[in-house]
């Protein structure tokens, strides 16, 4: 996304309700800044994130997609984040073939107590995605305004 000629990557962050969404809230409570272009979507568990959602985001113009869940072993539903880890490593390994640098996606474990980690992760991920430049490959021009 170009804003005033400056590239600001648009980041979609899927956060599980029990840990990472609460971690993001804590970042807010502590006023820990991260870029405005990070937009959070709440899901019950990281395992609710269908790879389709990620591809959809890229197709619609997201520059980066990050999935945040509870730390391994801490998933509210016991094993959800293990499914996430496996599914996402499979998806990520295929992204290059679709023409999307796999560095545009990431899975991070952020607990409800890790507000600082949430903000730091978002800052760092945004920077990493910014360095890759705009995501153009999968963007479906017909879907654009």
């Amino acid at each position: 996304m170009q804003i005033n000629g400056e590239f600001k990557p648009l980041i979609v962050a899927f956060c599980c309700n029990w840990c990472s969404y609460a971690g993001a809230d804590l970042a807010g409570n502590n006023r820990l800044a991260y870029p405005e272009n990070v937009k959070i979507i709440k899901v019950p568990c990281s395992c609710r994130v269908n790879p389709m959602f990620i591809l959809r985001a890229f197709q619609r113009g997201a520059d980066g997609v990050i999935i945040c869940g509870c730390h391994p072993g801490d998933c509210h539903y016991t094993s959800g984040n293990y499914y996430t880890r496996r599914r996402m490593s499979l998806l990520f390994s295929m992204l290059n073939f679709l023409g999307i640098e796999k560095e545009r996606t990431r899975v991070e474990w952020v607990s409800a107590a890790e507000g600082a980690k949430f903000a730091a992760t978002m800052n760092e991920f945004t920077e990493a995605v910014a360095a890759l430049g705009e995501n153009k490959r999968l963007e479906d021009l017909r879907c654009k305004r």
Partner: protein
Amino acid sequence: MQRIGVFVCWCGSNIAGTVDVKAVAEALKNEPGVVFSTDYQYMCSQAGQDIIKNAIKEHNLSGIVVCSCSPRMHEQTFRKTAQAAGLNPYMVEISNIREQCSWVHKDMEKGTEKAIILGKAAIAKVNLNAPLTPGESPVTKRALVIGGGIAGIQTALDIADAGFPVDIVETKPTIGGKMAQLDKTFPTLDCAACILTPKMVDAGQSDKIRIFSYSEVSQVKGFVGNFDVTIKKKARYVKEDLCTGCGLCTEKCPQKKVPNEFNLGMDNRRAIYIPFAQAVPKVATIDADYCTMLKSGKCGVCSKVCTAGAIDYTQKDEYIEEKYGAIVVATGYNPISMDKFDEYAYNQSKDVITSLEFERLTNAAGPTAGKLLRPSDNKHPHTIVFVQCVGSRCANCAEKGKEYCSKICCMYTAKHAMLTRDKYPDTDVYVFYIDVRTPGKSFDEFYRRAVEEYGVHYIKGMVGKIAPEGDVLKVQASDLINNKQIHIDADLVVLAAAIEPDKSARPLATMLTASMDTNDFFTEAHPKLRPVESPTAGVFLSGACQGPKDIPETVAQAGAAASKVIGLLAKDKLMGNPCVAHSNELMCNGCSSCERVCPYGAITYSDKEFRMPDRTVAIRRVASVNEAVCQGCGACTVACPSGAMDLKGFANNQIVAEVDAICK
């Protein structure tokens, strides 16, 4: 088409300071479905809620979006507000423009822009919301406790005290667990039997508690509030209702050479036995592996001496079916096997024993009537070496030990050392340790007494080898503080064996769909905030089955588990979480992918008839979700290859709509 109302909150200056709330309300007016949009200083206040209620009625709204603080703060509040105005509470979506916008951004323009986008995403979602109603299910007001150690006993007593019936299922012929085998207990040194047996009697006599001893759980079906459990009562060849526990049969039985498990094989019992004098229920049991009558049909002595006529050689295993509202797991622990620890010569010398064996050797009701005598020659040992952490904290020896700290060994070893020096001041007592861990109340003081008052030699270092030579045990060890090798000729060596969950715990966990950690300890729903609940609704955890614990901790957890059970049983109906998975039977191809990933066993398959377009009837195997069991994680929705599974409240099209709104 929905009729949506948007309510933008200022939260004083918390939101309005960085977000132009009026501009947000204005911008969202034109979104599809939105018929009303406004802003107010404090939406959560009474006046703010009234604005919402009035708008719902006035504009006949079918859904609302509140742009405010985190849903974790006020989602419940606004759902109630909506409900009060006649709207389904699940037609409310919160757009988090405080924690995740105004508080983390400083620039008014950018903050406003983001808040508008977040609002649009919430509107896009609520456009696809449907009213949801939580399912209701009745609660069977009876609890099951699996395992009758101190944990299970305490939990059962507390539940019974609140007036609910409880059943205890215990595999052994008596309740009591490991605590019944202990002599004295740290940190107060009161005798285990004196504080345990009154509780056992209370449990045995309570009219609310039924004890199924010598029994196992063989099947569990159902879900929270409505478990169907099959209990297998193993044949004990004695009629429980007739046996008076007089013990005559256990004296007259001619089969005298049965290793006595209660004394860990250090002496023998008869083929018909009562494990110990204070057993509850005090009923004899015939050990079918050793009974001559059962094996060859010749004997029948017990039957002849039993005046009550309680012996029944034809008894069969019995299966009992019962319904329960809640299940408590209290299956405890066992010391690990010492077979793989050759360096300690456990299998080569009778005088190398485990700490639990030491408990029996010092127990007045034990094989030596409480006199500390070496098992090999019944002589009094003068030099005793205690080895701590045998198999505990063993990061590199996973094939024989455990990575974790067994937690109780430092304290019971200090207890053993202290009691030995107290009773036999002429003995030299050495304790080899990696660290001494004494974080409980009055624990460190206890350990220091062992060192300072009782002169126990604590040596930091591990024992490398124990070699039996003649009638001594040559102990080779390192002293890490003085950096030297030590050689001790010991008369008795006591190994503080690591503890592990009971072997039956794993199959039980599978039956209950309760989760376990890699060490087979049951996991709690939340390690800090829900420590006595299993992640499976209606299943609770008590005692050492959840992790190594001493008695005070076990009893505390037992009470906590009981209070959770009482809270559940006090309800007449359970309201489920309506955001559960559901399967579109027309699309389901019965592949079982969803069933395999479901952590709760909420998905079942059945054959259903479908009318096909050509008017024929086809029978297909399709998945259906038990809404009372489903917790709504959504794992199945992603696993489903045909897109038949979806999650209410977080449906595929809703999440995609949010993605689209954000990426537009």
